[in-house]
């Protein structure tokens, strides 16, 4: 039970190597056999993973048109619960499994940087992890204390239970200590908020951030595929497939997990804005 975390990484490693083989095999094989695969794969959970799942789903459907993949964006918590209860074939979580979440196995399929974003008009370009922590806990209240404008800091974040929030708070070390000015329930809402409020700072999935806001460098490191992959950009989290231990998996589910963890999926994951595993 305590080995849950290590369990994750080991299975991930195993999964990815195996997947590489089988997907290579699949593409080498006659496409008529692949068409025979059919069935339903129910996935659900993390909302941050929506784009990634969407991309995987679209590509998978091209090879296996008879496999029907569903996705419910109910949040990481619900994804893990769904997998545990067996109502989902694959639970989606944008955080590692916690110690008390037993009976399921997590398989990392990608990484996601958590970008720290501010309004475009904000002169600040870089923050240290410590500064970030001080902002989050409300220790620093004015941008001028960090060399910016004389304006109150508006710290916006996500609701309790969000994988993004969990990732941010645990890495920055401010769990349970954040003083939010506003809690929004979705990534897009955070970006919109930061875009419309000149004094706002927030965090959002790297995959979703666009030009409408400014992404800060953290300790001089900008989030990007490389920095996330090599770990030099600290604020990041995994995208995890959660499956129930000991449950009978259909061929379709197995093939999909293999496909998602294969090298073929990298391009798709990139297209969805996330970072493929190294």
């Amino acid at each position, binding site marked *: 039970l305590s080995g849950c975390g290590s369990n994750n990484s080991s299975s991930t490693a195993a999964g990815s190597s195996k997947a590489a083989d089988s997907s290579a095999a699949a593409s080498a094989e006659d496409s008529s056999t692949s068409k025979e695969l059919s069935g339903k794969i129910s996935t659900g959970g993390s909302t941050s993973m929506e784009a990634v799942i*969407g991309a995987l789903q679209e590509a998978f459907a091209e090879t296996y048109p008879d496999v029907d993949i569903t996705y*419910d964006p109910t949040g990481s918590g619900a994804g893990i619960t769904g997998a545990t209860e067996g109502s989902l074939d694959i639970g989606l979580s944008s955080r590692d499994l916690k110690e008390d979440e037993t009976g399921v196995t997590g398989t990392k399929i990608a990484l996601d940087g958590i970008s720290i974003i501010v309004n475009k008009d904000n002169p600040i370009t870089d923050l240290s992890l410590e500064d970030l922590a001080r902002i989050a806990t409300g220790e620093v209240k004015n941008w001028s204390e960090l060399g910016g404008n004389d304006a109150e800091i508006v710290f916006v974040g996500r609701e309790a239970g969000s994988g993004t929030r969990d990732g941010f708070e645990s890495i920055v070390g401010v769990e349970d200590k954040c003083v939010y000015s506003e809690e929004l329930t979705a990534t897009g809402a955070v970006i919109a908020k930061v875009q419309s409020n000149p004094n706002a700072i927030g965090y959002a999935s790297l995959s979703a951030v666009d030009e409408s806001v400014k992404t800060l460098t953290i300790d001089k490191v900008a989030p990007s595929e490389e920095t996330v992959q090599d770990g030099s950009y600290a604020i990041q989290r995994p995208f995890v497939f959660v499956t129930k231990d000991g449950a009978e998996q259909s061929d379709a589910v197995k093939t999909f997990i293999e496909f998602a963890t294969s090298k073929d999926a990298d391009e798709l994951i990139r297209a969805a804005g996330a970072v493929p595993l190294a």
Partner: protein
Amino acid sequence: MKSKSRVLKNGLRTTFVYVAAAITMAVLVGIIGYVLYKGVPELSWQLITSVPSVTKKVDGIFPYILNTLYVILLSLLIVLPLGVGAAVYLTEYARNKHLIRVIEFTTETLAGIPSIIYGLVGMLVFCQMLGFQSSLLAGCLTLVVMTLPTIIRTTQESLKAVPVSYREGALGLGATKWHIVRTIVLPSSADGIITGCILAVGRIVGESAALLFTAGFGKIVADTIFEAYSRSGATLSVALYMTAFEEGKFDVAWAIAALLLVIVLIINLAARAVRAKTRKKNK
């Protein structure tokens, strides 16, 4: 002649009325105008007919439109017989005054329950207990309960408006109750039932909180009707929530908002037309 304070009070009252009316109209014009101003330019045939795709980087709202239609269709299909049946029971069959009062009270109660509670109970009952998962079916069933009072009430009103003399006439010919209901009462109250449907459609189209927890957020065009109902799907309102607040695609969101506004407008006009027709007929 009028005292000064009386003149003043009169003036004040009148001013207040005009100011309030002006505020209301400003709000009306402001909201409707702003949504249309932001949304209409984004609305394109391309958007309406496309399926959104991450890999191809295509925005589209076609699945949402389709889902909305599916949800309307099945919900009405279930709620209509139930609601009309309940209304017929109340006006034609029920003899026990206490029972009638209890049913009417519960109907009022249903009408007052907020959608978030429908969402939760729908999730517990349909998605989890009955095992429908997040699916259009579960969403439809939740909406059935939500729109039941609307159908019951409008049908009941129009049933009451059917003259007793029609029923007496048919009874005098030896017709049974069900026959009278089928051949005379229901046909004469068709207008009211249609109005009820239109109002229900309005509620269904605008619903988001209840559907979010029960119907999920699929954006795929299903191959078969059966498949469509058995998997999750977003209606336009839910899609508006998701595209705006989850994906941050505000251009698409505004387009959906404008589309919704137009749909609501059409629904209202339809309801008005039916009402006007009924009024003319009653005269």
